[in-house]
């Protein structure tokens, strides 16, 4: 039997602003994003703004922009300015499009808002070759350049790594060392487990309700988060776009019906900051 998780309160709203359109094609991508024919379309500005305004109105804590690669969206900076007037805002990016000019603009937006702007830059392995085998050639250096650029402008970015299990030991310490080498005095690192979905789906089973007795389902991120995309509302950013995670309304209970749900239950992981 599949367990369901009611919405406790809406705290985080994830916006899949570029759908699955990305300039990289990582081998472990949770939603199989890439540069060619994204299966989930980018979102219109008016729709994004409406979702942000709704989130602020119902008392949500924060909004996240994800994709795909959010900075491919032609109006991304304008969308950030709009969001930061209303809510603390985070962008999940691969960093490759954070040029000097974009970094300047992000620092301006961050300074102008009373709410925090968080930039999370993905980099998965402290070894350049190992990272680029997964994320594509040049991804390692470009991510670190982006983090350093933002740091130099007083915007301490968060390095976000998916633990692929390829880095023998001490992934966290090695990532800290990597940032120290680049003179990043305020290292911020978020580690995420690998989710079996998208390009790494393994055909496993979802958690059965009987396995979940005693588990605090209210602590799962689907109890206080929702993801919006160009084609509807979904339970969480991991399952956005998948038919079984699609909801009729944001307040619907979520079925823990995907094998990836097992990772959240077992690790207590949250895609949110911290």
């Amino acid at each position, binding site marked *: 039997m599949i367990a369901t998780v009611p919405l406790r*309160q809406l705290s985080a709203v994830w916006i899949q602003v570029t759908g699955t359109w990305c300039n990289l094609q990582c081998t472990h991508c949770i939603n199989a994003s890439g540069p060619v024919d994204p299966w989930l379309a980018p979102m219109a500005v008016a729709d994004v703004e409406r979702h942000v305004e709704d989130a602020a109105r119902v*008392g949500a*804590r924060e909004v996240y922009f994800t994709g795909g690669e959010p900075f491919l969206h032609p109006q991304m900076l304008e969308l950030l300015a709009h969001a930061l007037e209303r809510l603390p805002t985070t962008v999940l990016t691969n960093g490759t499009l954070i040029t000097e000019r974009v970094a300047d603009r992000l620092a301006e937006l961050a300074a102008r808002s009373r709410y925090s702007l968080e930039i999370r830059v993905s980099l998965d392995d402290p070894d350049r070759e190992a990272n680029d085998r997964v994320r594509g050639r040049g991804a390692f250096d470009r991510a670190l350049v982006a983090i350093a650029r933002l740091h130099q402008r007083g915007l301490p970015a968060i390095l976000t790594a998916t633990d692929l299990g390829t880095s023998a030991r001490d992934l966290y310490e090695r990532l800290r060392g990597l940032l120290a080498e680049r003179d990043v005095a305020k290292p911020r690192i978020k580690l995420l487990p690998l989710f079996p979905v998208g390009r790494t789906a393994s055909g496993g089973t979802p958690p059965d309700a009987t396995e979940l007795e005693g588990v605090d389902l209210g602590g799962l991120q689907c109890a206080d988060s929702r993801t919006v995309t160009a084609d509807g509302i979904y339970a969480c950013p991991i399952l956005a776009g998948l038919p079984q995670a699609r909801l009729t309304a944001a307040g619907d209970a979520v079925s823990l019906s995907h094998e990836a749900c097992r990772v959240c239950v077992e690790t207590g992981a949250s895609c949110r*900051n911290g």
Partner: protein
Amino acid sequence: MTAITNGGSEHRRVALFGGVYSNTHALAAMLDDARGRDVEAVHCLGDVGGFGPHPDRAVALLRQSGAVTIQGNYDAAVAGGAPDCGCGYTDPRDNHFARLSYAYTLSRTSTEHRRWLGALPPSLRLRLGPLTAVLCHGSPRAVSEFLWESTTPDGMLAAMLDEARADVLVCTHSGLKWHRALGDGRHAVNVGVIGRPENDGRTDVWYTVLTSTGDGLDVEFVPVAYDHETLAREMEAEGLPGEFVETVRTGWWTTCLEVLPAKERARGRW
């Protein structure tokens, strides 16, 4: 300072503080300072232990002071002998220091003090003139929820005040003070902590005085200088981490940095 009354009472002026973190020297200095400010009551918003040395000394002074105290996550953890402090860190470095601090505090808090910490209420209500204040540790929703200035939007505060049926939300837990007046006459105040400095390069710590002004509220943040060098030496003598001692001496946070949002993190040295 007149006799301190119990929660739920009505006042014109009150002093509030959080996060003692076993800093008995700062607690004594703060209580002295509050006595000179014509406050009718003093409230502690929890987290008596952690970070500093000799946790029993701070609990004893707090109890002796008569400050009306609510329970923080640290107090609940120490009282119940929980496996960790309940701060919810995910960063391995922060967890490393949190474990050291918690093990030290737990092993040096007497059974009698643990019983007292365990019996503290999780929240209280207070009348400030015509305004109703809800006092909590983290947030009215969760004892370990951090309410930072830069990640607590107006709409979320309004929702929390609606749920609590209150006009003023008063909290601590994060370690950084702030005040926001919502446009509708309601307020949110994080009173800061007196156990460690504010990550601003100053060795002072801060508490808060709230004064009812007719139909409004005056919020005053009060810096407290104390003998931080004696505290630092005691921490060294107790074998507490050098990183903690550095914070006491420099006013810059060196640990538990993970939880800081970008804006607050950018202001610190590390």
